[in-house]
């Protein structure tokens, strides 16, 4: 594929609101996880909660979209001049030439969960202030962002669990390649809710401690929330040396099981191979892999097997889930932004939470942040239900020094 320019990007998660705080946390190998203090939840688990999200106020014009997920989207859009860059793209290209494609897994379901507690005791009706379209509906976050920036091109939400906001980069690439649009706002927003915390708990997939990806004592995930956005455009003929490009993507399905991955990581391997082929790169060209690395026993061993088969044990790899928690539908977008920061800063993020390496997984796993020259990096997102996506990001002007 012809590489696309990521002309602006931003991330907001429990390790930081905006890029400055995020890159500082990544450089320090700091975790933002804390013991669960969300809502009325009594589970003994750790979460990645975005600070001060409750203080975000929606403008009256967008009040119909008021819910935790869209407040997180708004907080994310306001960082690093992203909303201005998006509005500028709309004015440069024309509203209909700008797409909004976002990933989420639970959208504004929290509002519905809370509304169910306030059902009319006689009729069972939801309270009159419950606004389905602006909160519960899965498309709500893309509709909200579309209105917030005035975009008028194609818009949709991809909801393929944990690969959602990686797959939107692939969708946007197709629309740009075919000339249907000139720019795309992509990314993901997912927020804490009871469904995912109690649901993953019912599957016995949440850890009672901060998650420990690729650790032999790993016992599950820590759930987090995040908003990550990227502005994708066609790359100029001669991009600046420090320009960050999307140079490949691969998408596959496990066709195996609803809630456990293919044991050999076959689907994950297919996604990585496709991404390399589309980028025209060999495995030796990849300088860093941001693993999906959730911290569940089966996910890490399947992904580890896939990476080992393809890359051997030479390519540095790490999981940032111990820093942010698993941000589910936002994870692919969030970790794509981490990869962009890695390329800009020449920094391989570490793996907070991991104390020891699982001796059964033979890959070049990095526990602490490390400065290194980087040119091409790969990010894996492997979804519940078996939907996988790998992205390759590159620095236009060769390796950072």
């Amino acid at each position: 594929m012809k590489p696309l320019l990521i002309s602006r990007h931003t991330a907001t998660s429990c390790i930081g609101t905006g890029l400055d705080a995020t890159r500082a946390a990544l450089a320090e190998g700091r975790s933002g996880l804390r013991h669960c203090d969300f809502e009325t939840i009594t589970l003994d688990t750790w979460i990645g909660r975005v600070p001060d999200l409750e203080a975000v106020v929606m403008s009256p014009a967008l009040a119909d979209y008021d819910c935790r997920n869209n407040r997180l989207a708004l907080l994310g859009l306001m960082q690093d001049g992203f909303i201005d860059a998006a509005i500028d793209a709309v004015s440069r290209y024309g509203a209909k030439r700008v797409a909004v494609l976002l990933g989420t897994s639970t959208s504004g379901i929290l509002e519905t969960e809370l509304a169910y507690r306030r059902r009319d005791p006689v009729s069972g009706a939801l309270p009159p202030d419950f606004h389905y379209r602006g909160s519960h509906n899965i498309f709500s976050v893309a509709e909200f962002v579309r209105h917030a920036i005035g975009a008028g091109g194609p818009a949709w939400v991809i909801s393929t669990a944990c690969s959602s906001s990686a797959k939107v980069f692939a969708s946007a690439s197709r629309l740009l390649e075919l000339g249907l649009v000139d720019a795309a706002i992509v990314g993901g927003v997912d927020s804490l809710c009871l469904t995912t915390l109690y649901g993953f708990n019912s599957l016995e997939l949440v850890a009672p401690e901060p998650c420990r990806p690729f650790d032999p004592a790993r016992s599950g995930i820590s759930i987090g929330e995040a908003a990550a956005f990227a502005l994708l455009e066609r790359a100029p003929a001669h991009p600046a040396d420090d320009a960050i490009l999307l140079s490949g993507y691969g998408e596959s399905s496990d066709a195996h099981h609803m809630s456990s991955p293919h044991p050999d990581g076959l689907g994950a391997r297919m996604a990585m191979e496709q991404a390399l082929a589309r980028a025209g790169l060999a495995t030796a060209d990849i300088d860093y892999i941001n693993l999906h690395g959730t911290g569940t026993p089966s996910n890490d061993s399947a992904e580890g097997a896939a990476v080992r088969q393809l890359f051997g044990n030479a390519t540095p790899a790490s999981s940032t889930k111990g820093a942010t928690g698993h941000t589910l539908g936002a994870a692919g977008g969030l970790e794509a932004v981490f990869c962009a920061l890695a390329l800009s800063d020449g920094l391989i993020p570490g793996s907070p939470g991991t104390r020891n390496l699982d001796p059964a997984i033979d890959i070049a796993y990095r526990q602490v942040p490390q400065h290194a020259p980087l040119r091409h990096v790969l990010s894996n997102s492997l979804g519940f239900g078996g939907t996988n996506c790998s992205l390759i990001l590159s620095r236009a002007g060769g390796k950072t020094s």
Partner: protein
Amino acid sequence: MNAKPLSATIRSVGLIGPGFDNWPEARAVLAGNVPWSPVATRIPSPGVLPPAERRRVGAVVKLALCAGVEAVDAAGADASRLATVFASAGGDGANCHAICEALASDDRRISPTRFHNSVNNAASGYWGIATGAMATSTIISSYDGSLAAGLIEALALAHELAQPVLLLVYDHPYPEPLAAARQVSDAFAMALLLDPRGNDAPRLQLGELCDAAPDTLPDAEMDAVRSGTPAARGLPLLALLAQGCSGKVVIDYLDDLRLELSLTA
């Protein structure tokens, strides 16, 4: 919207809706050959799923899988080799209702099956288990315009892969109390096997995003199905297809935009 027109032949159709158990029944009605009996949609049972999975899946997944199987079989295609695009406005409302009820109760434990059926990509996951398809599968939502969004993604994907792509569009009504906040009139599913190559079948071409009104159906009761269920927004296109006619159709997409399509018989 188009720099170069994006199109594909419609190799086959799968359809389940009120009064329609399959595409041949719907085609006969939409072509004007047979009167329509508007009985409530019958939810089929997906024989392609292993029995254990068949017991676990909700009506939404059954609809999607059965419409998909009909389209694949009608074309004599190999499901295990097809990329898929699933489009649904609301996913599995009954499952969501059960989870929200449990979470609002004193005992918040929810069953593992309920939880893994709650992901919006449940239909895609079960499709993969049933067919062994390891190609890309995408699950798209765009409120009432989910069909339009699915068509854009499916046609773009078919062009990128230079291979047929199966588009599956499906919706099922919510139970109360959610139904009061989001009304969907009946269950409906449509599958289209879209092939960017070949000229031996009717060709569907993507037009512009426009502000024209959506096309309607002449039968008011059948038009209520179209307007009452997001997945049924393609009925005017299917009517053209059933009648063997060429023409343009405008379908709902985003709140201020519609999508124009053209069909060459």
